[in-house]
């Protein structure tokens, strides 16, 4: 019997559409033919991998959504507590005491941030980072001040709007071929290269990163319309992105 027929019989069996006689024949064959048994095992393993992949993708998305909303709540709660302190304390200690308390909180907060080991600035938003970099740093590609980035190509820069603790862009980001894309990640990586692959697995772009970089600006026109995957060299996690034509 050809392998194709074997596969058909397996699907019939899994479908429950066999007559009693066909099913008994199937089970007899399974017990006597190791190749047939192997084919059925492969079919099972294949389905398990496919289903696990599907589940992991959905779990990843659910968990990161939960983490992000929890962090956002923590951040809002933190801001609200600071605000409440600001409203309550003046009546008790006067303005000088409030200023001292705020400075103390800022110092403690910065110490806690430095104490995270990896130096990850978990609660600094992209906007904060851009504002800070505009005054101090130059852009990694153009060498111009970061505040001038929007100047070149007259294109809109697609950036993340949430907290700066996630990888950007991801599969939920709407990207267009005419966009300048700011690739960003939570902290500097040991790997010095960012790789972009197309849907056929071909390497489209290998970008050299500066030491301690946690973002990279990709100019428009490099990624045409299509599905891409980006990752760091020697890293196994691929992030899917989709680039569409400008509507």
């Amino acid at each position, binding site marked *: 019997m050809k392998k194709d027929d074997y596969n058909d019989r397996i699907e019939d069996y899994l479908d429950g559409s066999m007559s009693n006689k066909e099913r008994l024949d199937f089970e007899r064959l399974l017990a006597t033919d190791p190749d047939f048994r192997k084919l059925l095992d492969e079919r099972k393993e294949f389905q398990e991998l496919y*289903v*696990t992949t599907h589940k992991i993708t959905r779990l990843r998305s659910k968990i*990161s959504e939960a983490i992000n909303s929890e962090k956002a709540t923590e951040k809002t709660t933190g801001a609200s507590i600071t605000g409440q302190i600001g409203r309550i304390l003046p009546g008790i200690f006067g303005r000088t005491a409030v200023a001292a308390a705020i400075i103390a909180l800022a110092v403690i907060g910065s110490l806690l941030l430095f104490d995270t080991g990896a130096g990850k600035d978990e609660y600094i938003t992209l906007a904060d980072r851009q504002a800070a970099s505009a005054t101090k740093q130059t852009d990694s590609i153009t060498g111009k001040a970061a505040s001038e980035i929007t100047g070149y190509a007259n294109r809109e820069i697609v950036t993340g709007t949430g907290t700066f603790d996630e990888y950007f862009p991801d599969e939920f980001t709407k990207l267009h071929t005419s966009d300048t894309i700011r690739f960003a990640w939570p902290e500097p990586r040991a790997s010095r290269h960012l790789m972009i*692959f197309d849907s056929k697995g071909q390497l489209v772009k290998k970008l050299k990163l500066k030491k301690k970089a946690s973002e990279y600006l990709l100019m428009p026109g490099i990624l045409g319309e299509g599905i891409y995957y980006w990752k760091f060299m020697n890293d196994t996690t691929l992030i899917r992105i989709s680039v569409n034509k400008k509507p």
Partner: protein
Amino acid sequence: MYRFIYKHYFASVKSIVSGFHSLILDPDDIFQEGLIAASLNVEKGRFNGESSFQTYLVAICRNICLKKLNRHKRVILTDFEKLDVIDEAYCAPEDQINRMLRLKAMLDEKCREIINLRFGLSETTGVDDPVPYSVPPPEHHPLQDGDVYFSNKRFEEISSILGIEPDNARQRFKRCIGKLRALMLKDHSFKMTLTDS
């Protein structure tokens, strides 16, 4: 539920991760990976409740850290640092999962749709649990566990969902699974586990 787990258990995971003093370990990543593994284990009934879920999650996260560091040759596992004995359902290698994701993306929409339906998954409705098989399996069916048997949706049901003939559904599934299989055969990491046609 995940927010609750993050809120209450993340601190323990973070403390384990920071104990390794490594730049390559991100507590958020480890937590996410650990929670995925723990969720799959719970679903498969492999968490027997002997310890609290928090202890279980932290042990899985510790294993992940050690595995990652070992992979980067930052640590060599010694007898003192044996992995906790946890029966992990989450055993498919990470790169195989990522490759499968990439291969799935290479299929056209109709192919993904019919394979998902056959395997009891649906991206559109968000139902991601296997759909119970409508006809119970025979009492002594030869599959050791009924997972695959139970989770396959019948072509007759698929055909009514898609508004096509059952035979067309069967042919489309056959063509699509053949395509995915061919892509897997081209991929070195899968080639080892598949029988060539």
